[in-house]
């Protein structure tokens, strides 16, 4: 062994090198305040390891970026851990950079002969900030997409060359495949290579001038190895523990819904270390000055930060003047202080302030979480992610899209009690569902059916608020034959001896909707319900038969077994009568009702008080809202929910 090492030393001189590296003297001994540079180098090492791993699983294109990150996060061994470490180590790096900078400035370590190294450090800081910026976009989720768009718009606002720079960075006039390929090449190739280069120089120059020691009276001198190395190692361990802790606590980094330019995202915020700038740009005086100087956005976003940074870079020169060092320290504290206050303000306004903006932000964040979790649930379902990408999963999901359409077209008439306060007008129709509570549908539920059967007048009371030419029809409905039926039969239906029969009738109707919790058309209860629907004969007394007024073509189990859905029986119980009850409360029934209620509900001469939406909604919208109201959407089977954030 010894001979082998001798041989190696003879050929390489590694012992001198090691000696040089390890026996660096430290006047005044090892100190905790010197650890920042080492922790930064260590964190960078962590980023390289995890970054290479992620690289092996990541695919930069608009239809595969989110998808591959989803796969990393939810399917791969240690995927969420590796991604979480990479994410939180990036945050740690920013914090350590600030601490390192503070230590250097406060100790005066930036002064001659170390000016160049100070500048090298500032270049490194810029590189790390750009690494953060480029990395934020790569998952191609709503959060990263919209936040990064703000950053590239800022680049576009730069005087003269701005628009060109923006196009170069984006790889075209708008975001797409080439934005990702470029950001990825920058993030995983160009910027790390620059970082390694500058870090090498930084360490070389640092060694050349030796450590800027702070030696107090009576302190013994020390050596780098092992005293300082141990301190560095312990500090790195603490950083690693913090990164791992954050990773485990938040179950890795967040992945919101896939980026969708057609879907607004009102919680777009940059990463926290750019938040001060974000807040600064929101001040009115900043835009006013921008206007006055004809620089626009660029003033607050580029010129002012540029000036502040230049003052920082000039510190070694400022220090030559009397009071120069004190000025520098004061300057650093005030810039950091102001940035800290701005960050705090932005944070408070978003997360705690009881303002409309704050509430909007928090709601948007909540929706982004929800949509992200929903996309993951859909991706993990049998359908999986189609080759066209995961954004389509959400765009074609009734549970996600239905409530939005309902809110836009339907809610103002069909107000639920939970939303009365949102409208000045009284409701004109029964509430069906609250888009804010989207997995609870009142319409077509068993309670709904009971209420229509035994309290028709009360159930549709809101119709009385309809005015104008549809008012007459509404009045006619409220005084019509179903109202009479309900009034005269309610007592019989709800009689205790008929409890089972009443339930059976409700179940029969409910089964027609094919909702997930509906009983099979072959079950005894449903068959009994069909009998009552046809004859009106109950255990005790009778009601007027439903088939006398309603078309009904009941569902049966598909005899060929090809379809999971039930199909219509060979024969109808009754035909050509309105309101049609075939498939009542199911997707097709709702779709017909929303598209053309006159035809579906009332027939040519009947009373209909609802406007048709066939001309207002696209077919896709009709389908989404109908499927939502009919509970015809994918539900994660109980016990299969995966952990989300």
């Amino acid at each position, binding site marked *: 062994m010894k001979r082998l090492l001798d041989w190696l030393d003879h050929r390489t001189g590694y012992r001198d090198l090691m000696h040089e590296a390890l026996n660096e*003297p430290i006047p005044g001994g090892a100190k905790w305040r010197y650890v920042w540079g080492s922790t930064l180098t260590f964190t960078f090492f962590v980023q390289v390891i*995890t970054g290479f791993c992620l690289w092996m*699983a990541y695919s930069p294109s608009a239809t595969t970026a989110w*998808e591959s990150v989803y796969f990393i996060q939810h399917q791969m061994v240690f995927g969420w851990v590796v991604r979480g470490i990479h994410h939180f180590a990036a945050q740690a790096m920013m914090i350590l950079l600030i601490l390192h900078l503070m230590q250097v400035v406060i100790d005066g370590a930036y002064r001659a002969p170390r000016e160049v190294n100070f500048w090298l450090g500032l270049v490194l800081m810029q590189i790390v900030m750009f690494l953060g910026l480029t990395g934020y976009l790569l998952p191609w989720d709503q959060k990263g997409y919209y936040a990064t768009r703000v950053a590239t718009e800022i680049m576009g606002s730069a005087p003269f060359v701005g628009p060109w720079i923006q196009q170069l960075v984006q790889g075209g006039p708008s975001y797409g495949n080439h934005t990702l390929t470029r950001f990825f090449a920058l993030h995983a190739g160009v910027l790390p290579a620059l970082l390694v280069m500058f870090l090498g120089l930084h360490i070389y120059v640092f060694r050349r001038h030796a450590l800027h020691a702070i030696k107090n009276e009576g302190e013994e001198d020390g050596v780098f190895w*092992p005293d300082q190395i141990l301190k560095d190692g312990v500090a790195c361990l603490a950083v690693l523990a913090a990164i791992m802790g954050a990773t485990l606590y938040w179950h890795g980094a967040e992945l919101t819904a896939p980026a969708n330019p057609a879907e607004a995202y009102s919680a777009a915020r940059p990463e926290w270390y750019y938040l001060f700038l974000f807040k600064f740009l929101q001040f009115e005086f900043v835009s006013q000055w921008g206007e006055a100087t004809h620089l626009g956005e660029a003033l607050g976003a580029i010129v002012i930060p540029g000036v502040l940074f230049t003052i920082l870079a000039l510190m070694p020169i400022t220090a030559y003047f009397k009071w120069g060092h004190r000025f520098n320290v004061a300057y650093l504290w005030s810039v950091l202080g102001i940035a800290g206050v701005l960050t705090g303000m932005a944070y408070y306004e978003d997360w705690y302030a009881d303002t409309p903006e704050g509430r909007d932000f928090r709601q948007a964040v909540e929706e982004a979480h929800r949509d992200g979790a929903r996309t993951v649930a859909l991706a993990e379902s049998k359908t999986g992610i189609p080759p066209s990408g995961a954004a389509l999963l959400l765009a074609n999901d009734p549970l996600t899209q239905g409530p939005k359409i309902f809110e836009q077209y339907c809610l103002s008439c069909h107000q639920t009690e939970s939303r009365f306060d949102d409208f000045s007008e009284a409701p004109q129709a029964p509430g069906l569902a609250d888009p804010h509570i989207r997995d609870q549908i009142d319409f077509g539920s068993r309670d709904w059916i009971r209420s229509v059967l035994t309290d028709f007048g009360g159930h549709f009371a809101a119709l009385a608020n309809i005015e104008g030419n549809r008012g007459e029809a509404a009045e006619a409905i409220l005084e019509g034959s179903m109202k009479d039926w309900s009034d005269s039969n309610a007592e019989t239906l709800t009689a205790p001896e008929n409890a089972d029969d009443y339930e059976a009738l409700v179940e029969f109707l409910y089964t027609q909707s094919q909702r997930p919790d509906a009983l099979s058309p072959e079950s005894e209860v449903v068959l009994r319900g069909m009998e009552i629907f046809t004859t009106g004969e109950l255990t005790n007394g009778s009601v007027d038969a439903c088939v006398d007024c309603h078309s009904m073509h009941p569902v049966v189990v598909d005899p060929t077994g090809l379809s999971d859905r039930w199909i219509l029986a060979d024969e109808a119980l009754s035909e050509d009568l309105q309101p049609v009850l075939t498939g009542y409360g199911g997707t097709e029934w709702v779709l017909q009702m929303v598209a053309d209620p006159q035809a579906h509900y009332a027939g040519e001469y009947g009373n209909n008080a609802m406007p048709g939406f066939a001309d207002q909604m696209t077919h896709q919208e009709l389908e989404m809202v109908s499927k939502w109201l009919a509970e015809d959407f994918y539900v994660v089977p109980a016990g299969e929910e995966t952990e989300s954030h």
Partner: protein
Amino acid sequence: MTETHSPDATEQANPPRRNFLVKFVAVLVGGVITAVPLVFGGGFILNPLLKKKSSDEDSDGFTFIGSTNSLLPGGPPRSYKVTGAKQDAWTTYSETAIGAVYLKMDEDRSVTAFNASCPHLGCTVNYKSDANAFICPCHDSSFSLDGERSNEIPPRGLDTLNVEVRNDNEIWVKFENFRAGTAEKIPV
């Protein structure tokens, strides 16, 4: 520049026991902080070996290929594309080409199926009617019509696949791929 270069100063200042302890702890800490990212990164990279393939099939694995009417009893083999659902990392393809098979009908109307990929190194073999044999374009492996190899280039004959004729004339094949370059037929 500080020129107080005296590496032995601390050696003397610190008792050797303490110095050894410091060195030991320093190395230990260094080991831990290096190991943690490497372990997680290593597991991540080994994903293909650690993650079992999900057996998503609740079907029997057979795929519909074509009709018996497209084959002549005792006639030449014909090539068919196999399409099916495929899971490729994050993407689910509902209908995509997953391979090719040769189907051949004997005089007694029994159907034989071969995976069209060459057991040598995986090229797709051709049926040459003039030679009345399967010949691989890559390194000239050749196979007789019953799939036996007729030269020494491939390590084994063409891989047969299970066939079922359903509903009178539908040919269903259980499509599988096998490892190339081995004498045995090992499914992948």
